[in-house]
């Protein structure tokens, strides 16, 4: 029931976010309307960070307690995390073509994000390959924790290396130079994506519980 309410809340927020991104937010002076992809691209990657952060919490929890609930939590966060990382990569690629003139370049940010995506795809594949539940959860927990070590590399790559990708405008140490309407549209979409993730997370936990052999 709570998941259902979250789902409806996410839909309402996403519709509001779409309106803010494509209508309310002003046309950006340098890039034009193509910059509106940012309202999808940035919330998607921030949601992926949140998801993989929860994978770490669930993984550490499992390794410390061996309680399956922690493993379910890690799985339920990893799946949508991969999805949101995929959306980040594809939307970034579509944004890159008109602004950089290329769909893809081996820039530090792009490459580290692709590595993050592949590590967690590997995490999900690993889970599918190991049958014994405790061994599966232990192996997955190790990969889940090690994989998240890449998140600071993804985030700070634009600072640490000379990159084509622009530096962070929102989560940087300096006050954000972003204009208020742009920031509002971004925040609305960020909230909407977080709600959508919360729905996916709750639903996936429910499914993982039902999938267990002794469920019910």
């Amino acid at each position: 029931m709570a998941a259902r309410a979250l789902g409806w809340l996410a839909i309402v927020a996403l519709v509001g976010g779409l309106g803010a991104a494509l209508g309310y937010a002003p046309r950006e002076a340098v890039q034009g309307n193509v910059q509106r992809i940012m309202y999808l691209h940035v919330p998607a990657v921030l949601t992926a960070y949140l998801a993989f952060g929860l994978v770490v919490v669930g993984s550490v929890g499992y390794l410390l307690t061996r309680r399956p609930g922690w493993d379910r939590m890690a799985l339920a966060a990893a799946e949508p995390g991969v999805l949101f990382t995929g959306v980040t990569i594809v939307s970034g690629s579509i944004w890159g073509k008109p602004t950089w003139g290329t769909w893809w370049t081996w820039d530090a940010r792009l490459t580290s994000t692709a590595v993050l995506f592949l590590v967690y795809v590997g995490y999900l594949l690993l889970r599918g390959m190991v049958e014994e539940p405790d061994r599966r959860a232990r192996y997955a927990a190790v990969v889940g924790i090690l994989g998240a070590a890449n998140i600071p590399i993804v985030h700070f790559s634009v600072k640490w290396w000379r990159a084509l990708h622009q530096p962070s405008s929102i989560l940087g140490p300096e006050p954000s130079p972003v204009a208020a309407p742009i920031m509002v549209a971004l925040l609305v979409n960020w909230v909407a994506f977080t709600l959508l993730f919360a729905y996916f997370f709750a639903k996936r936990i429910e499914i993982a519980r039902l999938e267990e052999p002794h469920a019910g």
Partner: protein
Amino acid sequence: MRDNWGYVFAAYAVAAVVLAGYWRHLARRAKVLTGREGAR
């Protein structure tokens, strides 16, 4: 710079298809598993 609305719509359309697809997958899986539980 040209407005490139086509790229904007393409990005949002891909995201919508992926996220809606996952939503549908979860809904179907939950329905199947709940039915199985009910049949026990």
